[in-house]
């Protein structure tokens, strides 16, 4: 399975960890790392045809948070959305946040920080099963 990845997280360390874990899966043909959701969204609009892309998006970020990002993503054309699978990353212990996130059709799953390599691998496999 060949996939590309987009990581959106305002924390440098967390991006680094995500990248390393993604590399370890062996699926990745390329990663794009964004520290803010606005630039990530621009990138996705410019790459509407990027087949099989997994987006890891942190929920709590300044300016545009993960919720806003997912909502903006949901408004993209269906043809664009079909190329992407969203995985929400959260530190939140809030059940309400979780249920809100899992109600978005584009979100395939939620990973809680700190997530393990196995957890990530499982989530990706399930997304493309």
């Amino acid at each position: 399975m060949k996939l590309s990845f987009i990581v959106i997280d305002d924390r440098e360390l967390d991006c680094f960890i995500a990248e390393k874990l993604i590399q370890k899966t062996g699926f990745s043909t390329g990663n794009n790392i964004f520290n803010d959701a606005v630039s990530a969204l621009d990138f996705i609009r410019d790459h509407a045809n990027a087949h099989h892309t997994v987006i890891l998006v942190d929920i709590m970020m300044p300016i545009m948070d993960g919720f806003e990002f997912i909502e903006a993503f949901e408004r993209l054309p269906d043809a664009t959305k079909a190329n992407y699978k969203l995985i929400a990353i959260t530190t939140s212990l809030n059940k309400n946040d979780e249920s809100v996130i899992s109600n978005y059709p584009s979100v395939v799953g939620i990973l809680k920080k700190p997530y393990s390599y196995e957890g990530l691998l499982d989530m990706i496999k399930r997304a493309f099963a």
Partner: protein
Amino acid sequence: MSEKIKILYLDDEHNNLVGFKASLRFDYSIYIAQNATEALAYLDKHPDIRVIFCDQRMPDKTGVEFFEEIRQSHPHPIRILLTAYADIESVVDAINRGHVFRYVKKPWIEADIISAIDEANKFYIANSMLSIQNEELRKAYVELDKFAYSVSHDIRGPLVGISGGINLALQTADIKEIKEILSLMERSVAKLDAFIMDMHDYYSLERGELKISAIDFNEVAKEKHDIYAIYARASNIDFQMEVEQKELFWNDLASVNLIINNLVTNAFKYQRKEAKDKKVKLKISVSRGYTTIVVSDNGMGIDEKHINEIYNLFFRAHVEESGSGMGLYNVRSTVRKLDGTIEVESVVGQGTTFTVVLPHK
């Protein structure tokens, strides 16, 4: 009590009004009105009127009707009805419709009026204390909620990052990579520490007492220079300082330092990375009992649509992950505590200037 309690008396009979005022004016501020319109004008002009006496029998409307009317528009003053004919029906009406606090029988004697005012005033004070405390409690709850939410993210966030880093490092044999992870973890720890320091500021601000002393801003500036010079050199920022102080300035040094440190740190932090001529300027001038602190930079600037939110607790206008969302909140709380003012001017891509004016304490 330094100020006399304000009392309004509404009665269609002029003689009653004059008599009332004559016997009570030494101890209270008395406003008299011969009709509802006049009475309303007084209530609008003096929102701190505490007690209203009103005659029941008046030609245009009854006392109960008047009280019923003002209950919504002027809920705070305590309502007392004066009446000669207290049949059961009017009593029921007065209580149910007019929400009166007391009845005083006409013709009244001074002792009855004074005791009624006394009771009404106690009730008024208890009520207003209660509503002030309710408001404070409500505010505290809102902040506590925000705090709980933020703590789970702002403290737990770096922690889970660090724990993720540890897991990763444990599975890595490459020393170079482990060192890279360690240095990223070190930065996360520093941010967490900065967050906790800001939180400490927040609490000492909320609960702390002011310690007033004479402030020598040349000393303050020298200390700031020592703190920021190394950082300024390392990040290639031209840090300028200017102090103009010919008179003593009395204030709380810790508060003044909190304001300056937060504003200067922000000016350093929110620079444009690619810019060649990065500048931060701190200017302090003391004149005629006021200190003006101006912190300006030619950095990123703040988007106009966020400018009203920058002082909100846990608001962050930049992606820069080092922001705690408490710095400017703490600055503004401090400025308010010192009865000062704070203003900001900012243009995206050109820079930001904060101006704080503090009066003598």
